């Protein structure tokens, strides 16, 4: 063995010493041997070498990996640099320490309920109506943006619960989830409606501002400079309006009404709006 430059591992020596009990080998062999073992070797090749005279033919073993087997886990025939390094043993899954989930983990937001994941039909049915366009018209862009994200995450939550209910076969609740989803989608539609309206209004305002001498669209200097005088052509009309305004002032004692009738762009005061004839 040694003459061939091979190493004999504990396994091979135990095999050769216990040659009588060959049949008991599989039972005595450990289930998981470290990979430091090397191949068991045969000395027959060396012993069979007959021609020892000088100039005899080459009788060496040309197969470098003879006796190595991955199935029998023999290891390499040659000692490797890391042969003496102890290898880590795998730990069974049930003996590993339990992984703790962070209570502030972002993925909890996908769950309607932390214990059951899916919301019960009762929980799902506890929802109100969707936001109407009229209500959303009074909201700022930031508010609408926030509400959109709330809706988007709610839809993810509903989709997660639907999947979990179906796959884990929890029971009923699809109809309630669908009803909730419908309301969320209605809200999202209303948000889009509101923003589209706002865009159209803005486009109209830009068109008006192009011809408005008080508005500067160049982006240099103040955008709006209100004038405290009237053009010559406008004076006559203004005088007429002033007379009307005075009459209105004496009748109702209000100050906002003439201003409202002056400029069509400004929003009329709520009082005059209320008095306007209903169509």
């Amino acid at each position: 063995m040694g003459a061939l430059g091979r190493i004999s591992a504990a396994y091979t020596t135990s095999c050769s010493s216990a040659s009588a009990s060959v049949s008991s080998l599989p039972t005595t062999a450990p289930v998981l041997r470290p990979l430091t073992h090397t191949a068991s070797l045969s000395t027959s090749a060396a012993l069979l070498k007959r021609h020892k005279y000088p100039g005899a033919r080459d009788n060496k073993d040309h197969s470098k990996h003879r006796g190595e087997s991955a199935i029998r886990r023999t290891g390499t025939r040659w000692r490797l640099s890391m042969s003496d390094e102890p290898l880590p043993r795998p730990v069974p899954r049930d003996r590993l320490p339990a992984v703790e989930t962070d209570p502030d983990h972002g993925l909890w937001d996908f769950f309607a309920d932390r214990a059951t994941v899916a919301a019960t039909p009762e929980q799902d049915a506890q929802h109100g109506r969707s936001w109407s366009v009229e209500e959303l018209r009074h909201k700022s862009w930031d508010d609408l943006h926030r509400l959109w994200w709330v809706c988007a995450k709610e839809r993810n939550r509903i989709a997660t619960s639907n999947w979990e209910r179906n796959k884990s076969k929890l029971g009923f609740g699809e109809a309630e989830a669908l009803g909730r989803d419908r309301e969320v989608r209605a809200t999202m539609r209303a948000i889009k409606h509101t923003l589209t309206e706002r865009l159209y209004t803005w486009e109209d305002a830009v068109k008006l501002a192009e011809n408005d001498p008080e508005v500067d669209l160049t982006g240099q200097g103040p955008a709006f400079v209100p004038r405290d005088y009237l053009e010559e052509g406008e004076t006559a009309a203004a005088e007429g309006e002033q007379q009307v305004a005075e009459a209105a002032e004496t009748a109702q004692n209000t100050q906002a009404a003439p201003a409202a009738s002056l400029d069509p762009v400004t929003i009329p005061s709520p009082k005059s709006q209320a008095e306007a004839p209903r169509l």
Partner: protein
Amino acid sequence: MATRVAAATEAVAQQLPRRLGKNQIFRPNHVVAFIRPKPRQPPNLATFVVPLQFNKFDLRDYLFHAYNVEVTSVRSFINQPTPRRKYGNAGKWFRPRSQKMMIAELVKPFVWPDPPAEKDREDFDHPTFTKLEKLREQQMEQQMDPGNIRLRTQVKAPEDRKSLKKQAKEFMESGEWSNGQIGDGKWTEVEKDAPV
């Protein structure tokens, strides 16, 4: 040695600014569902069902911005359903829409809670649900193979048949039978020799 270098590289990489997409989407109209992991799936992998047009970068940025969840890598695949017929076993053949799934490797692991036991599913009306599902399956089987008529031993006997059998047995044993009704005395025997 190698592990120390790797750890140092990792530490430096953590401090670098995150590379995220620059395309701003103000009203994302996507629905992303978080899916229960397979039984032996490690807790650092999270599975999602995403829209078909999503790519890996989309999911990474979506999770980071909307849920504040950091992800080291994303794997994706598409499940193509088998062709189906429009009305179960009749109608035109078609292929249902494919479904895209993505598995994200999380920085912070997330362990799913176990599904509730069957007795804890009262809120979902689980007993009725299972009964109905079983019935529907039987109906489906009957429709798919109408020639397969089940034997009497395979079918649960209905209650009326059981009670009828019991009554018949009693009658055979006692030899007399009564329906439990008492006559009101208005019944008269029709004369046998009356002309009809």
